[in-house]
């Protein structure tokens, strides 16, 4: 994809479950899992902006991170909850 240069960084794959179930076949490179976590926090927030307002019944975003051996190494969740006042 794109003009990827030679890289030593491991690749991680991000399967998203929300209004879609997206299986990532392309992946993104990161130096380590800590960098993945930081990026995931941004990704969740950005996805939330797009999906929660447009999909009133959506309650949760989740992303499963797999490594190059396709093993799950991290799961991330973001929940949107509203409660009516009494």
């Amino acid at each position, binding site marked *: 994809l794109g003009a990827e240069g030679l890289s030593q960084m491991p690749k991680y794959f991000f399967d998203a479950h929300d209004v879609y179930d997206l299986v990532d076949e392309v992946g993104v490179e990161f130096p380590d899992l800590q960098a993945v976590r930081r990026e995931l926090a941004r990704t969740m927030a*950005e996805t939330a902006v*797009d999906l929660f307002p447009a999909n009133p019944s959506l309650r949760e975003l989740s*992303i499963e991170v797999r490594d190059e051996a396709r093993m799950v190494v991290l799961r991330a969740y973001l929940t949107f909850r509203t409660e009516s006042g009494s």
Partner: protein
Amino acid sequence: MPTRLVCSSSATNHDGRLSSCSWVHMTSHSGHLLPSHRLTVDPTQHPASSLILKLRRRDEVSADEERVIKELVQAPVCIAGGADIVSEGDRPISSTLLVEGFAARYKVLPHGGRQMTALHVPGDFVDLHSLLLKEMDHGVLALNECRIVKVPHALLRRLTETHAHLSRLFWLLTLVDGAIHREWVVGMGRRSAKSHMANLFCEIYSLLEVVHLAPDFEFMLPVTQNDLADILGLSSVHVNRVLQELRASELVSWVGGKMKILDWAGLRDAAEFDSTYLQLQREPR
């Protein structure tokens, strides 16, 4: 047989300002593809060709004006992909015309975050405004190996005194740059990531079509997923996701740096794209 100096391709390195590309002689009879069927600039054409196409899309350019432009645009040099063409803090004494390749204007924040604020394609002046703004408040980066021509400010200043119409056309170029900035701000502030990305692809296609580098809705897009994240102001994982959505909807394919728009009407709809801001109408300016 006309002979022109062209720069041969070479592996890009990411450490030097100037690439190691060598200069070779090449004749212009070498059976090259028709301009409308190329994805890269024909090296046998005059380095001002794309710029002239760009201007002619928006207004008449007289034979005299064409001659003046060609005199301004001489002696291309190569820049390696990843190298700065102009750096923040520079006080350029020339403005850079992109002859071949892709470049991006960018700012880097103290903690290392990078935002690309503009993309440039062949035929674009990447810093025409430096004629008046003097000190660069941002850098310009070669995204892949580029050929550029540096046009001395002294010549551009003289042109503003002798060729009023051409000066207005150059002014128009900076105004279109400004209009593109506005569209990017709208995209970052108000569009969904999918619409924002679709808009960018519509825009790049429209700009490349003007300089005959997008035959059959196909064009080179030599950027990484991380570059795209820095262009759109999104996380790279989100960019990855949105690309997959556009692919799954069969709107675009992007393989080996080559993008193909599979469904122009569908992509335009996803983007809510309106090309008015690109000023693609030929009219007196």
